[in-house]
């Protein structure tokens, strides 16, 4: 061993002399965050308290809160959000448990189907449900009349109603709760349940006293996400509520940007949503407090599935039956609409037609440009957004910089801003001309009309979710793994690159896919920020929807899903992503 003579070993002198770039890089990301988040919010705040000619006023709030035209949408929005939260919890939590903890057959299939419903843009789902459950032309209502012989104007479902809006939003929001619950259950070690069983508890007692309380934070978080999603969703209510003659807050805000635009009223109208979201998020952390059930360290066995016995197959049947609603039926209806001449009639071999496909790809002059914009933006946002969220989540999780709490707060803040309001904030921030502040002329930053403004919007909108995803992924990587690297001579960035990043690979891929999917389906900010040269798929579909071109919508929607699925599938083929996750769970 003495042959390993100390003197021959090069100590990292070079490292010592080299400039450590970590600090500046961190500062850069912090500044970026301020630009992404603070700037649009600041503009919204300024507008909420501004008169049309720039004076300071609270008249906007008086107008909002004193007017039934705004009070009704507010109440409607709350009713929708609460209902969606409860429905999602009731449906998704048991389903998550079945998939994560029971011996129900087809668990993977159910997970895949839930993913499919997540990938479905809510506005596309809403259009599909119009095809299915519009009171007169809806396929389900037609079928009902054919079966029951009910009168021609009799209908079973009316999707153009408050109930219809709640139903459709729930269909495409419950995956959030499902994923949170299933993942939480995946992480709870089987031993904890075994310990309860050993003490003589029966399966249901164990579930009640151990599993459910341990899952409660995830359920609560899921309900909150569902609530916020439902509250801030624009597409589905725009498609279903407006024909029924009522507004939600988001559609009301959107209508304020129609000519003549009233951004100051819109900003003020966004305030209740903003306040409510912040209150709820505070309440959640107050309720959960430090009750973090993350089980770290120690080796735990895989959970033992609960035997359902005779209920195995009925449970699967119920799950698949539920998946009719967000997946099978809507996609059936879209296929029908894509390949028939009249979307409200079931296709037969004789009525099968490719004219919608032909129109979409060969006549509609916007299709290709829009596709290019959409997928360029989705890839860019996925990549930049993942990187951004990764660094911020890292800085916060590792308390790497002073004020990391603020970074975390800023990264989470956009969750409180409806996409449509953020769109306006960005519009205001990046369309202005010369601005003079305290005698200093600030040059104009005109990004409106470029893809950049959409990129910024997508980055900001997807930041909270991707930040939290990667935050929990980073939490799962023990800080000592990085410290071990640093003490051996790696800079913070090098440790991040060589140790943390590979261990986070599967989380990173998942986040990238998440952003990609979310960008492709994002409508509410894009609907404000697009110009004809920077139109994206969701806006094109929305445009087509406003003039009732259901066939082309169906074709575009199905293609959108096909490409999204293909991209997500390809991303998951990145070598080692799966295997390394196994390793990092050690």
């Amino acid at each position, binding site marked *: 061993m003495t042959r390993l003579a100390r003197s021959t070993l090069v100590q990292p002198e070079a490292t010592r002399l080299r400039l450590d770039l970590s600090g500046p890089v961190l500062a850069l990301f912090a500044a970026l965050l301020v630009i992404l988040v603070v700037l649009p919010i600041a503009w919204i705040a300024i507008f909420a308290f501004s008169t049309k000619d720039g004076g300071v006023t609270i008249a906007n709030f008086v107008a909002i809160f004193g007017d039934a035209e705004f009070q009704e949408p507010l109440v409607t929005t709350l009713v929708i959000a609460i209902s969606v939260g409860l429905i999602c919890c009731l449906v998704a939590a048991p389903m998550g448990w079945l998939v994560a903890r029971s011996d129900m057959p087809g668990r993977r299939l159910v997970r895949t189907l839930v993913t499919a419903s997540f990938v479905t843009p809510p506005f596309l789902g809403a259009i599909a449900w119009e095809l299915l459950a519009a009171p007169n032309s809806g396929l389900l209502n037609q079928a009902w009349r054919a079966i029951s012989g009910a009168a021609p104007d009799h209908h079973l479902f009316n999707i153009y109603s408050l109930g219809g809006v709640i139903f459709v939003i729930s269909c495409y929001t419950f995956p959030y709760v499902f994923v949170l619950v299933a993942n939480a259950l995946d992480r709870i070690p089987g031993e904890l349940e075994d310990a309860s069983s050993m003490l003589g508890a029966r399966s249901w007692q164990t579930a009640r006293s151990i599993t459910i309380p341990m899952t409660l934070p995830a359920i609560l978080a899921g309900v909150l996400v569902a609530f916020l999603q439902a509250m801030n969703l624009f597409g589905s209510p725009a498609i279903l509520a407006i024909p029924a003659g009522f507004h939600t807050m988001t559609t009301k805000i959107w209508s304020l940007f129609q000519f003549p635009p009233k951004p100051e009223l819109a900003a003020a109208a966004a305030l209740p949503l903003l306040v409510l979201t912040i209150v709820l998020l505070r309440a959640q952390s107050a309720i959960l407090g430090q009750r973090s059930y993350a089980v770290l360290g120690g080796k735990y066995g895989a959970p033992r599935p609960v035997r359902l016995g005779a209920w195995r197959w009925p449970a699967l049947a119920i799950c698949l039956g539920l998946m009719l609603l967000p997946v099978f039926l809507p996609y059936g209806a879209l296929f029908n609409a894509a390949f028939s001449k009249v979307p409200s009639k079931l296709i037969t071999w004789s009525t099968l037609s490719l004219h919608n496909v032909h129109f979409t790809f060969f006549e509609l002059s916007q299709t290709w440009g829009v596709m290019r914009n959409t997928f360029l933006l989705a890839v860019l946002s996925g990549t930049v957004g993942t990187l951004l969220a990764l660094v911020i989540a890292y800085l916060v999780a590792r308390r790497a910089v002073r004020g990391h709490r603020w970074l975390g707060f800023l990264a989470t803040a956009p969750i409180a801003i409806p996409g449509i309001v953020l769109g306006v904030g960005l519009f205001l921030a990046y369309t202005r001309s010369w601005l003079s502040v305290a005698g200093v002329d600030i040059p104009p930053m005109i990004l409106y009309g470029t893809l950049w403004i959409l990129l910024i919007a997508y980055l900001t909108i997807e930041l909270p979710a991707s930040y939290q995803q990667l935050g929990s992924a980073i939490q799962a990587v023990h800080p000592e793994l990085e410290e071990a690297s640093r*003490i051996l001579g790696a800079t*913070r960035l090098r440790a991040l690159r*060589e140790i943390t990043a590979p261990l986070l690979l599967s989380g990173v891929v998942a986040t990238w896919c998440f952003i990609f999917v979310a960008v492709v389906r994002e409508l509410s900010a894009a609907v404000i920020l697009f110009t004809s040269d920077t139109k994206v798929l969701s806006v094109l579909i929305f445009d087509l929807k406003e003039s009732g071109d259901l066939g082309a919508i169906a074709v575009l929607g199905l293609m959108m899903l096909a490409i999204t699925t293909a991209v997500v599938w390809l991303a998951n083929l990145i070598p080692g992503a799966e295997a390394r996750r196994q390793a990092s769970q050690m």
Partner: protein
Amino acid sequence: MASVELRGLTKRFGATAAVDNVSLTIGDGNLVCLLGPSGCGKTTTLRLIAGFIEPTEGEIVVGERVISSPRRTLPPEQRMMSMIFQSYALWPHMTAAENVAYGLKIRGLDKATVDARVKAILAVARLEALAGRYPSELSGGQQQRVSLARALVVEPETLLMDEPLSNLDANLREEMRFEIRRLHDQFRTTAVYVTHDQAEAMTTADVIAVMNGGRIEQLGSPEDVYERPVSEFVARFIGASNVLKGQAIDRTQVAIAGVPVATTGRALEPGRETAVAVRQHDIRLAPAGSGEPPANTLRGVVRRQVFLGSSRDYIVEMQDGAEVRIAAPADQSITPGSAAWMHLDPERCRALTR
């Protein structure tokens, strides 16, 4: 090679001082053990030395170089240190050999040198056969040795160990103590070892710093702290001493439960409350005889006795209600409830400073 010096090191989290004005010099090639219960500030001290956190006050000097001060803290990667973590912190996506090679690669050594050094250190750590395995495929002891090898292969100026054995089972822990000592003797790296296990500290350390409440309570050789504890805390924490309290009668004697007990250690101030440490096996127990007990002998009643194989564990209650714990020879059995005499050897009764 360099010594490590802590000068008035203080780290506050909010209002509480996790490390409170700690000064300590670790001589070149010495292994110093920071020993104390959880929350005593030993791990914080270690992380301050590593540079993972910055001190609130004071500084850390390695050789001639100030590496930590409130104004400027050298990042961990520039300190030429190594660390063994409580969790081992082996990188799950690298094999044992890759884990060990990592630090060498960072130092920019060529592949052949890296390979040779990795091979050599794996041999020292008896890990050759396991080089290609991933951490998840190794046992706890094997992971521990990989962790050691990874820290030593870069031949650090300073080696830091944070409860390195706490995740091992008892047998392995004992074996690894000697392993660490053996490797230290071989490399003579300046080392700081954090533990809450006094046996571990005794086996491995050249110098032990007993920590309590963010301060160093006593600093000395293992013999020093064991034989000559300065405070009640050290006496209790190291080697299971009884701490008996009484009033000093003169410069050497303390009245304990009314009995004058001769002590050693320091000159007493007559009239002052004084604590005396006596180790459990330094008390000679005997059934109470008739008449007056001999000098330096306390009276009591046996409350409990447990046969431990090599010895018998007694709890004896004195007249003033205080309990004394005694390790008596295994063959000496006194029925609980009966009166007993406890003879204290004046040489073994240590009057405590604090």
